């Protein structure tokens, strides 16, 4: 009984926490890439006499951008498949939020102790991305169609590396429950395999989060807004909110799988934050340093570099776990 109450309380608590952290992560990516590009970016402490007019800080800028969209009319093109077009953003948001509940946060194990929680979390994330493909494909716009097509192509390779890297860890540690990953201490070769999986997971994150050079689904100069071309108002805002949760999920899942102790106890919270910041910093650096690949070259990059790496990792993990 106490357990149930605690779980419900922690679910109630994770909603603001995940939103806060997701917004913070997107703010950090924006701010860091701005500073790397010799720009100012969203201002942390407002200067001069502008503070009374527009508030003393713009840390919440990513959230404001989303909230603004909720105040606008949503247009639905006459060529669209209306039901799919309208419901896709909400389903995408629902699945990305549902994934939050299966990934532990320091002090809040949530539902991560459920059997097969690793698979559940990763599939919820996949479902969320699936609906960012279905909605645009139903919009009837050529840009949306091309964006969705690119998203599918990227999804295939990025998702393959993502799931495979998770399974490398799962095989190494012999469990599919996220909360059990922490209790396992492996030998040095196992750590090496885990580190390799971490690298491939990072590469998969680039594709899933549309970090450059893999942002071709929303390549503005080529295909306008890509999948989001026909979306406006609340529907677009919902998509962006879903993206914020996906960002939080990816970071949280990365830490939960590859640095499992950090998300086990509330005492680890400072280190958890440091790890998240480092991850975000790396994402921002990659984002800043690269132009966009064409979709064909991106597929080539994944299939030539990341997928073989994952396969090597998988074989090594299998060897270590089963044979040795």
């Amino acid at each position, binding site marked *: 009984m106490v357990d149930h109450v605690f779980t419900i309380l922690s679910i109630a608590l994770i909603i603001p926490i995940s939103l806060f952290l997701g917004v913070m992560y997107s703010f950090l990516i924006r701010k860091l890439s701005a500073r*790397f590009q010799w720009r*100012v970016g969203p201002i942390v402490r407002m200067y*001069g006499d502008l503070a009374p007019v527009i508030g003393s800080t713009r840390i919440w800028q990513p959230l404001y951008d989303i909230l603004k969209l909720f105040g606008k009319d949503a247009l639905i093109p006459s060529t669209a498949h209306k039901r799919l077009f309208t419901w896709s953003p909400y389903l995408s948001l629902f699945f990305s939020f549902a994934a939050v509940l299966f990934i532990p946060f320091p002090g809040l194990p949530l539902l991560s102790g459920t059997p097969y929680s690793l698979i559940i979390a990763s599939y919820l994330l996949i479902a969320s991305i699936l609906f960012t493909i279905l909605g645009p494909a139903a919009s009837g716009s050529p840009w949306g169609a091309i964006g969705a097509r690119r998203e599918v192509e990227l999804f295939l390779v990025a998702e393959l590396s993502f799931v495979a890297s998770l399974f490398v860890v799962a095989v190494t540690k012999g469990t599919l429950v996220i909360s059990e990953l922490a209790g396992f201490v492996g030998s040095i070769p196992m750590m090496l395999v885990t580190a390799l999986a971490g690298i491939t997971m990072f590469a998969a994150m680039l594709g899933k989060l549309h970090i450059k050079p893999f942002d071709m689904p929303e390549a503005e100069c080529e295909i306008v807004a890509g999948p989001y071309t026909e979306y406006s108002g609340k529907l677009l805002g919902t998509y962006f909110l879903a993206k914020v949760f996906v960002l939080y999920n990816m970071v949280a899942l990365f830490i939960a799988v590859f640095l499992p102790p950090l998300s086990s106890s509330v005492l680890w919270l400072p280190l958890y934050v440091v790890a998240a910041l480092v991850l975000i910093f790396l994402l921002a650096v990659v984002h*800043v*340093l690269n132009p966009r690949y064409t979709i064909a070259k991106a597929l080539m990059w994944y299939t030539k570099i990341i997928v073989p790496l994952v396969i090597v990792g998988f074989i090594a993990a299998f060897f270590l776990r089963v044979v040795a």
Partner: protein
Amino acid sequence: MSTHIKILKQVIQKYSSPMTLNYPSSIDKKRMYSQIPEGLRGFLERDEEKCVGCRACYMVCSGRATKIFDTADKRTVQVFHFRCTYCAHCEECCPEDAIKLTSKFELAVTDRNDPKAYVNTDLKMLSCKACNKPYLPEKMQKRVFERLSEKINPKVKGVVVEDYHKTEGFCPECKRVRGVLLDTHTKKHIWLEVV
């Protein structure tokens, strides 16, 4: 990969000093670049003391920003900043050096009828004694007379000045009509010169 690292170095160098400036608070800070240069051509200012309303700026204005409005008692020389191209052609052509393009650059207004968008100079007009029509700004007449008396051949100066005072207050049309009556034929000083 090596180019990535080189560019990362470049990028990190400038991390703490972004190119963008906080506006307006960093405008007056002294920086190597992005400050207002000395010779910037911005907001036009007209010296009301010097301007005589000669229309030279109106004639050369390529954007038709300068306009002249004549009413019964005053001439208004106007520059409308929404149309000004800051070419400083009027500054170049002004015979009285009354026009100066300053380095003021914050010219935005939200309403086109805002008085800040206009530079007006009002000049008193002379009305013709005979036909009562406005014909020339008072200052311009004075200035033209001064210039004329500086440059005129001293031999004929007396006659010309005398004639000038005789016809003072008539518009060019009325002056022409009264030429015989007042004995102010324009060519008569040539005869004087010959003698």
